[in-house]
């Protein structure tokens, strides 16, 4: 986690640097069916994150030795565009994106009814066009929507959400400065209905009590994010944001 800094991230009224309360999410919008070729797609804007997800499959797993005779393999590929971050990123996977791809793949596998598609592969391509803090949980949230939009049977939706520690306080959904200068970040992936945890990473410094506070915030926000996922699938905002520029 972040570097020590003189920046005050929470003011005397308990408000955060972007004006949010500790339990408030950044603005969040999801749309589906934004791409033509993909079997399913979603576009998410979450704070300053702009992330596109496309799903292809189920299709025969290739190369053959990657096939699982009992179930489909869910293969997420998290990728950052060269222009998505402050300093131009060289194309191609780095160690960070390999790890994120792995944990997202595993989280989605827990939600998809993989046993219905032996020997198949389901590809989930996550392209971060603009990165703010929390790209992995935003990508995960959108991936779940894109899978559903592709008509792939799922036992539950996966909601991605994070909490963290900033100026010694536990807050929901870290923004960029909070991520840079905060003391802990706890991104989680949760099955919306059952509350089961399918992704969890943490770095920083949390006592066990702080961990409990953080998960309470996340569990509570899960419902709100799930509602937005369902609205997106109901088609209310189809393909509007993708066409629109600006932040």
């Amino acid at each position: 986690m972040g570097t020590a800094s003189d920046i005050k991230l929470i003011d005397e009224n308990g408000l955060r640097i972007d004006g949010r309360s500790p339990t408030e999410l950044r603005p969040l919008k999801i749309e589906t069916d934004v791409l033509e070729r993909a079997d399913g797609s979603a576009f998410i804007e979450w704070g300053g994150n702009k992330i596109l997800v496309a799903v292809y499959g189920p299709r025969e797993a290739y190369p053959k030795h990657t096939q699982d005779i009992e179930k489909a393999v869910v293969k997420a590929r998290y990728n950052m565009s060269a222009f998505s971050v402050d300093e131009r990123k060289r194309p191609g996977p780095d160690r960070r994106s390999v790890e994120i791809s792995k944990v997202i793949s595993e989280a989605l596998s827990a939600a998809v009814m993989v046993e219905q598609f032996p020997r198949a592969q389901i590809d989930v391509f996550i392209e971060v066009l603009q990165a703010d803090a929390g790209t992995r949980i935003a990508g995960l949230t959108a991936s779940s929507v894109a899978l559903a939009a592709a008509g792939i049977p799922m036992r539950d939706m996966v909601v991605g959400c994070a909490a963290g520690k900033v100026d010694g306080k536990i807050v929901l959904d870290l923004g960029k400065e909070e991520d840079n200068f905060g003391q802990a970040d706890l991104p989680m992936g949760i099955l919306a209905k059952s509350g089961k945890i399918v992704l969890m990473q943490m770095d920083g410094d949390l006592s066990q009590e702080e961990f409990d506070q953080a998960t309470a915030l996340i569990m509570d926000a899960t419902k709100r994010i799930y509602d937005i996922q369902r609205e997106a699938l109901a088609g209310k905002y189809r393909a509007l944001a993708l066409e629109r520029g600006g932040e």
Partner: protein
Amino acid sequence: MPKDEAGVLSEIKRNYILKKLKEGKRGDGRSPESFREISITTNYVPRSAGSAYVKLGRTKVVAGIKIESGEPFPDTPNQGVLTTNVELLPMAFPTFEAGPPNEGSIEIARVVDRGIRESKMIDLESLVIEPAKKVWIVFADIDVIDFDGNLIDACTLAVVSALKSAVVPGSTEGGKDFALPVRSLPISVTMVKIGDELVADPDLEEEQLSTARITVTTTADEHIRAMQKGDTGYFTLDEIRKAIKLSSDIGRQIREKHFK
């Protein structure tokens, strides 16, 4: 270029398209010389130095510009640097694969780059911070996110739009931010040959049926700045002259409609 998901067009579809083309009609009702609808959204990735989201029919690309200070090339100490890269993202088409650029994406990037460079669109001489030591490096990166043919023109439109709206972060080097100095507006026009017909702005089906491809990039003075013939078929000299004339005309129209 990839075939459709089955790998080929059905014989029936092929014959139908060819027959219509002989009558001067295309599958989607366009005339042979016309482009699909173009939509350009600039400032699409606001935190980049410049960006554009472009739809050319159902083909969609996103271009983003990053501008950083760095060393000039030894043989051009008094010029900034421009590099162009195209990523055929696997999300854009079932057979596109992740990985380093292949000959397809390299050709697209190089043709796009050539059009911009040869038209002297960017005034590279004005991008010097300290001669021979420090210049502005302009990275133009293009993500292809949805593929339905004619990537060269879609990518050129996106990069040109993104560069035109880009801001050089001069304040990071003790100066002021300033608009990237743009001197011309190169427009590329690609045509393919199907049977004996030339059609502009081919969609994927048309690309699959075509035997040869030609791209002509022009500037407002109607001069040719870059050309590229592709594919295993041929053109006659007359066909190329026709393509040049058409590129000039369509370039003018696009400039008027989208860059005024």
